[in-house]
């Protein structure tokens, strides 16, 4: 869709910008390229990525093209508090994973995916559920980012939507294919520096070009009471609460995060994730402010499309150079996320599918690399096809969101509680998915007894979310107390009320149901308590195993012994 109201680049200019971006990124990866990459480095580098590179990579990965558009839309729709209710919760997804991430890393220091850890803990069925949720998430993310590229190119130039999708897909694949995760981390740094530098310039530039603080305050009269309030209930219930519920689900269900947890130097996990939290929040909330500015000025999005808001504001108030910078900003954001998704997908296929379920402990690192690279090519093609045909992915999105919510408790509990069983994990996720669908698609009436039933489950889900968040930072006792208080509060305030918010009710139901089933089945199980030390022995590096049967540090050979033993 080309719009005459926005500034238009010539075809040549856009092609030159894209060639400069992807060509420069590709050249950068040549500096780290090795003729014979090893499989472990292809998935998680050397497990010793420094604080700076790690923080840059985490921030760049978490900021995708939709972050800008959605934050601006939130600012435009909900007013003063809108950008906060988008950016803050997105940032907390990074923050809340690191206490659990440190536990994951302690249990399996040489892992490449969270699925490997779960495989060592439970076996294939639980691992494959997790891997499936990761794959679906990354494919959706790829598609959304390629779609954003197509939309941007078609809005700002005569080039077609499909051309933008294909150029972005090919460009990202070009620089990620050979070195995998190493290339992703390396280029994330450069992309983030560009992205931050542009955001630092563009936000104040638009702000002062539109008239500065006095114009913004004068425009507040155009806002409704809810939009003008920093404590808008409308914004909290419709934007903040669903995001808050998703905080842990996104963090656990996303392999791009786990991959960085396993790649960063163990001692630097905390500063890395704290810095990424602040970095993500600052950039995304800042760009969301452009939506608030548009609202106060009474700007109407072209063709009613909210995604046009930022380009419209940049186009309307700044010279063409800034529009080119904005173009690079979005291409950088979507590419850094897309290359991370390709790396995540390849690691899942290499480690979770090939390493654990096909080779069964006798993985050939060269074949693993081939699997990883083929995965990247197939995933790029799938992403391009899905994006080009603008397929409706709403059902897939709903399904993945539910799956991520359903696995949060079983995954976390499996890493801390020695009684959780494979059967409890798998059954709890399946039951939670069924109940989620019943509520989400209103297959059962959400009134009377069944409405109350789902509200009770959702209240438990609310308690679980708060309890896990507090547990992550303050420990078990504080977690239990917080969960109990949240459960009581939910029972008091949500009963008879939550059924009107189907999305929220269904999401919370997934958490509550999986927790109930997982806890009940684990308590009833007669299996002996699990020895967590065995996870370290079962998850190891693949290249080390291929080169020598000796373990790290010359101790008894945990990694290689386990990899050579089919389980």
């Amino acid at each position: 869709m080309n719009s005459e109201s926005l500034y238009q680049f010539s075809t040549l200019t856009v092609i030159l910008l894209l060639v400069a971006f992807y060509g420069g990124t590709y050249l950068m990866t040549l500096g780290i390229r090795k003729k014979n990459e090893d499989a472990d480095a292809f998935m998680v580098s050397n497990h010793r990525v420094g604080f700076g590179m790690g923080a840059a990579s985490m921030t760049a990965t978490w900021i995708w093209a939709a972050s800008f558009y959605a934050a601006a839309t939130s600012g435009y729709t909900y007013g003063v508090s809108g950008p906060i209710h988008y950016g803050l919760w997105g940032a907390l997804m990074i923050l809340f994973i690191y206490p659990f991430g440190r536990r994951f890393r302690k249990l399996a220091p040489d892992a490449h995916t969270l699925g490997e850890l779960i495989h060592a803990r439970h076996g294939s069925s639980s691992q494959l559920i997790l891997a499936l949720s990761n794959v679906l998430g990354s494919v959706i993310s790829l598609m959304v980012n390629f779609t954003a590229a197509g939309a941007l190119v078609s809005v700002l130039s005569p080039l077609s939507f499909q051309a933008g999708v294909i150029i972005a897909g090919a460009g990202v694949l070009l620089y990620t294919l050979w070195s995998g995760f190493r290339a992703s981390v390396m280029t994330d740094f450069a992309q983030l520096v560009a992205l931050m530098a542009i955001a630092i310039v563009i936000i104040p530039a638009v702000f002062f070009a539109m008239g500065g603080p006095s114009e913004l305050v004068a425009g507040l009269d155009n806002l409704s009471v809810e939009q003008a309030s920093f404590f808008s209930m409308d914004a909290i219930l419709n934007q903040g609460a669903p995001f808050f519920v998703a905080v842990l689900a996104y963090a656990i269900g996303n392999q791009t995060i786990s991959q960085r947890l396993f790649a960063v130097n163990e001692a630097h996990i905390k500063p890395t994730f704290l810095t990424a939290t602040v970095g993500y929040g600052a950039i995304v909330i800042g760009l969301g402010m452009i939506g608030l500015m548009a609202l106060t000025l009474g700007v109407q999005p072209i063709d009613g499309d909210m995604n046009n808001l930022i380009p419209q504001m940049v186009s309307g108030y700044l010279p063409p150079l800034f529009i080119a910078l904005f173009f690079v900003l979005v291409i950088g954001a979507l590419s850094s996320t897309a290359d991370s998704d390709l790396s995540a997908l390849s690691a899942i296929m290499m480690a979770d599918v090939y390493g654990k379920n096909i080779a069964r402990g006798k993985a050939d690192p060269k074949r693993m690399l081939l699997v990883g690279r083929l995965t990247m090519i197939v995933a790029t093609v799938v992403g391009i096809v899905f994006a080009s045909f603008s397929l409706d992915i709403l059902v897939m999105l709903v399904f993945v969101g539910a799956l991520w919510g359903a696995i949060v408790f079983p995954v976390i509990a499996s890493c801390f509680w020695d009684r959780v069983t494979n059967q409890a994990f798998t059954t709890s996720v399946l039951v939670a998915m069924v109940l989620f669908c019943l509520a989400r698609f209103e297959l059962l009436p959400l009134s009377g007894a069944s409405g109350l039933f789902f509200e009770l489950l959702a209240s438990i889900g609310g308690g679980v979310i708060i309890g896990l968040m507090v547990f992550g930072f303050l420990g078990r006792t504080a977690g239990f107390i917080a969960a109990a208080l949240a459960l009581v509060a939910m029972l008091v305030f949500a009963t008879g009320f939550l059924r009107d918010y189907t999305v929220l009710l269904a999401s919370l139901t997934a958490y509550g149901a999986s927790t109930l089933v997982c806890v009940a089945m684990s308590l009833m199980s007669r299996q002996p308590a699990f020895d967590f030390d065995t996870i370290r022995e079962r998850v190891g590096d693949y290249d080390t195993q291929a080169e020598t049967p000796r373990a790290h540090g010359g101790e008894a050979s945990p990694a290689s012994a386990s990899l050579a033993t089919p389980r």
Partner: protein
Amino acid sequence: MTALYGFYVLIWPALTLGVLVVIIRAVMRDRRKAKEEHRDLV
């Protein structure tokens, strides 16, 4: 009120700048260390 809203909008690019400086300095330190230890940065 005007100053407060000005601060509310401009604090985010300022924070972004702060994080950018922290990250660049850390990467330079990582790079130096990697060179000293004769290993790759990533």
